């Protein structure tokens, strides 16, 4: 229908470019380096945001899961923060941090660490009591208890959180780049919109979708690799 429409020009091609226009736009955007440059910037940001965010998320999640005290001090505030989507904070953070890399990093890290913190602390708290008792009966030292029983037990929910976190990093980065940036895929998209080059806009949208899918797919492969033992145990 889309192809037929563009052949007969029911809707002006300025409004809805034909698939072949989009393919051409894609080719030319690759040729002049628009895509590789901006996408490279974006992916680098994603990597940084994910590393920082998951470090914060894992740290906070593990300590909140293990320690009643940490949970009591940070838990309630954390749960209030999670109720309000990252998007809302962006103007405030822009005010405090400007529109540089710092802003992107904070937004991504925040978006990423929240699901990870939640699933990690829940995962640790939901480990069956009997596993912990085995550890106590064997009077294992604390660090062995942690690495041999608690972390493996919580690993499935930790991975769940990592996948959600990575998805959030990607989405929030696209949003920040659309709102406040001078490069990256989100910027490329809103700039193309300003120039009314909708073929370029659609190329960017497809890329955003494809990369989101690819990121999730990669992490799912990693998860399958790490959790192979889990299928048999469960």
């Amino acid at each position, binding site marked *: 229908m889309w192809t037929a429409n563009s052949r007969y020009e029911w809707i002006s091609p300025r409004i809805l470019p034909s698939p072949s226009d989009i393919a051409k736009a894609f080719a030319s955007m690759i040729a002049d380096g628009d895509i590789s440059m901006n996408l490279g910037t974006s992916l680098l940001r994603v990597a940084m945001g994910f590393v920082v965010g998951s470090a914060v998320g894992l740290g906070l999640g593990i300590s909140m899961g293990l320690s009643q005290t940490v949970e*009591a001090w940070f838990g309630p505030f954390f749960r209030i923060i999670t109720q309000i989507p990252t998007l*809302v904070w962006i*103007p405030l953070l822009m005010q405090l941090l400007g529109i540089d890399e710092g802003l992107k990093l904070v937004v991504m890290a925040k978006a990423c660490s929240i699901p990870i913190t939640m699933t990690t602390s829940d995962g640790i708290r939901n480990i069956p009591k009997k596993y912990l008792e085995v550890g106590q009966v064997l009077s294992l030292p604390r660090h062995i208890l942690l690495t041999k029983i608690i972390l493996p037990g919580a690993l499935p929910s930790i991975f769940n959180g990592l996948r959600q976190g990575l998805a959030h990093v990607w*989405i929030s980065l696209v949003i920040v780049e659309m*709102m406040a940036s001078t490069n990256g895929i989100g910027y490329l998209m809103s700039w*193309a919109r300003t120039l*009314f080059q*909708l073929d370029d*806009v659609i190329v960017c949208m497809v890329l955003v979708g494809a990369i989101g899918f690819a990121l999730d797919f990669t992490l799912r492969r990693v998860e399958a690799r790490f959790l192979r033992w889990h299928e048999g145990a469960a």
Partner: protein
Amino acid sequence: MHALRSGIKVRWQGAVLPLLLFGLWWLSAEYKWISPTVLVSPARMLAALGDPAIRDTLVGGIEASAVRLAEGAILGIAIGVFVGFALALSGLAERLFGPSLNAVRQIAMFAWIPLLTAWFGNGDLGKVLFVAFGSFFPVAMGICEGVKAVPSQLKEVGRVYCLSPWLQFRMIILPAATPAIITSLQLSLLLSWVSTIGAEYLMGGMAQGVGTFVMMGQDQVRPDVILLGVTVIALSGFVFNKLVRSTSRYLLRWRQI
């Protein structure tokens, strides 16, 4: 008694961090550790409400956003309910539209904004359609999965009693899928709130709205306006979230977990 006491203790400790941050905010603004073009104190933020022009814009903006949210959510949910049931009940509909819906869903919602503004402008129409778009997917997908997950034993009962297709739907499928339907409605309402704010942040335009209020503050370098707007949005989000969740818990109270 012990539980009560520990409940109070937990609340006391949980309040320390937010109060500390609030105090830090106040102090850093009061003693100008951070430039007043960047951050103002809570008192100055509230003082902005004294300006009738700002107050009117804010109140009008809240109304406009609420209307937008309602219009978008009703439109999106209505279409979503229809599509969800159609996909689940008709193999033909599923084969025709299932794959394209799944492909569209892969693209993050906010990536649609540039295209939507190009098609429908950055006025009310574009924003309402975006909200509808955001609230459509959770309902459609949730209902489709919920209806498909109805145990086949239950459906067989309907066939054994030779119920008409409408009665099978009304008496068996609908009640069995209700929890999934309510959960998907909850998700979709929460998402429609986020997309209302997102649309107002990202689409710009002259229309009123809470998000537009914040953007206006940004254009005019009015940190008090930005802070006020973000605070109002955050509070409204918190209340909306609580409201939606407790309603859905109330509706699902008959279900044993």
